[in-house]
């Protein structure tokens, strides 16, 4: 029997399998910026973000995905950042966020 198209379906499961993901780049990033381990994911960076104010760019999300080995589209997303540096002033853990942006772009792009 042909399936009836009701206009909606089952969405693909969003499971991040860290055992399957290649964490090499993530580890390299962590090695150069060990302070990233102190990130509590509060989202101050995203709340203050100049680019995030104009687009859907979400630094906290991109960073979290990259750390878990989900690199697809991360470089393109990071390229929306204008490096203005507000996030760095707000980060409660004092993470060098501008350095993180540059590092992720360098590791995942063609620098």
């Amino acid at each position: 029997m042909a399936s009836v198209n009701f206009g909606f379906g089952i969405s693909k499961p969003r499971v991040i399998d860290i055992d399957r993901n290649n964490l090499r780049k993530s580890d390299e990033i962590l090695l150069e910026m060990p302070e990233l381990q102190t990130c509590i994911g509060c989202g101050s960076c995203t709340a203050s973000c100049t680019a995030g104010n104009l687009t859907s760019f979400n630094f906290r999300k991109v960073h979290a995905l990259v750390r878990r080995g989900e690199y697809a589209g991360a470089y393109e997303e990071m390229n929306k950042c204008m490096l203005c540096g507000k996030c760095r002033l707000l980060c409660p853990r004092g993470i060098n966020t501008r350095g993180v942006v540059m590092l992720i772009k360098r590791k995942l792009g063609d620098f």
Partner: protein
Amino acid sequence: MNFYAPFTLPFIIGTIILFIVLAWKYVSWFVALTHEDKRLVAKGVPSLATLRSVWEVVRESLLHVRIFRIDPRLGYMHMSLALGWFLLIAVGWIETMAYMGFAPVPLQGHVFFKYFAAQGVVTEHKPYFDFVMDLLLAFVLSGVALAWFKRFSSRSLGMRRATKHTTGDRLAMSFLWFIFPLRLVAESITVALYGGGSFLTGSCGSLLASIFGERLLSYAFEPAWWLYSIALGGFFVAMPFSRYMHIFTEIPLIFLRNYRLRPREEKGAIDYFEVQSCSRCGICIDPCQLQADLGIHDVQSVYFLRDRRYNMLKQSVANNCLMCGRCEAVCPVGINLNTLRLNSRALMRNIPNERRYGYFRDIDRSEGSGKVGYFAGCMTLLTPRTMSAMERIFEAVGDQVWWADRQGSVCCGRPLKLSGETDSAHKMMEFNRSLFHKHGITTLVTSCPICLKTFKEDYALEHIEVLHHSEYIERLIASGRLVLERGDVRYAYHDPCELGRGGGIYDAPRTVIEAVGELAEAEHNRRNALCCGSSLANTAITDGQQLKLASRVTDELEATGAATIVTSCPLCKKALQRTAKGGVRDLAEVVAEALPRK
């Protein structure tokens, strides 16, 4: 007279190598200059700029006036070596001419004239020449002694820290230091054997004769001249590959600079002149706060230029700089250190023709309309008190204001430029430029010196005057449109790097502060002011290191006894707030508070 002797060979070979390498460098650099730069040179040569350059060469390459201003002892050391050696050569040349007339004399004949003329004719002016040459040699030797002494105790010559040199530089330096003592020995032996000489070589000669006896000295005669020649030749070979290349690069650089050639945001041939003009004197090391407060010792301009010259520059070195401009302000050669560092970063990080920032297209969140535009900048959006203070000031004077980015907008582009992504930065600049033009403003006021600098230098805005809010307020006060109530509060003013050294605006904020209260100056102020440490140019130091830099600044500002620190940069304000015990305010805030109450 015969001017050939085997011992002159090392000198001759060294000189030939030196001139071949120099010619090759000069020609290849000049050829690589851009078309525009060559046009500037062609236009500049037959102008007054050439005469000005000659005078500047005398002042800077020989007398070292700028180093004298930094420290007289250091200035004397550099001058005695440069001017002394130059005069030794010049007077030596005249001496040869006095003996030989205008007969052609080969180069080594001039340099080793004392050797060749030892048994020659004695004219009536020989004692005078002997005296002058001895005097000059003593002058140079005093410089060598100081240079030597500085290696052990740089502090006594006014430098807390001296440059850490590479092996190649040390080799070249050793040759240089040996040249003049060896010359003294060779000439003294010659004098002891053949007579002549004055207070220096004469007395040294008789001393040597009394110790060793004439027979022994006659054996040492040839070897002494050999050693002197080897030291000269060795130095000449090492020269173009070491720090001493600056001797021959600074002179054309002075000319080119007076012809208005400047390094740009992308690498160019003019950079060779700038980079190789660095003598690695190390004067840039002491003012560097990364060195003084954080103990980072390998990123200062002297090391940056060295690494760049020998193609071993790493991103970690290029990125670790506040670009506060304190080194540029003291550089005795006047090298454009910040521009060079920027174009190094651009070479490492710029991505041309990438399709980025497509999302700018339809953004226009500006509000209001008026001839005066106000651009808060990202950082001011993070310090909303500054912006509301500006709003009250605009209201008080009744200016119609167009608010470019109160609801958020695109960054000015300077942060990306500072990190080397020049092409991306230009996309933002183009966006903002067309936004400003579209709204027909004639004055653009910004309260962020970072934006201000890029508006002035990169935007090329037509018919729009760019003002920092301190300048704008100063004008309002001067024209009587803004009346303020002067209190008796003391304010310590902190000069932001981008506004002060970066934009040359020191007086406007001070005039404004004096209109509302009493101004207190920190120990380091104006051109010498310290950086708050949070500079956008540095993407390498950690948060803790930034705090350390800021606490030194606030300590100094609080030492003035003022209760409140005033600055005119939102980034400095944020940075200093973290370590200040009292309040840190923006200039606009203290002005808005002094507005008469209605």
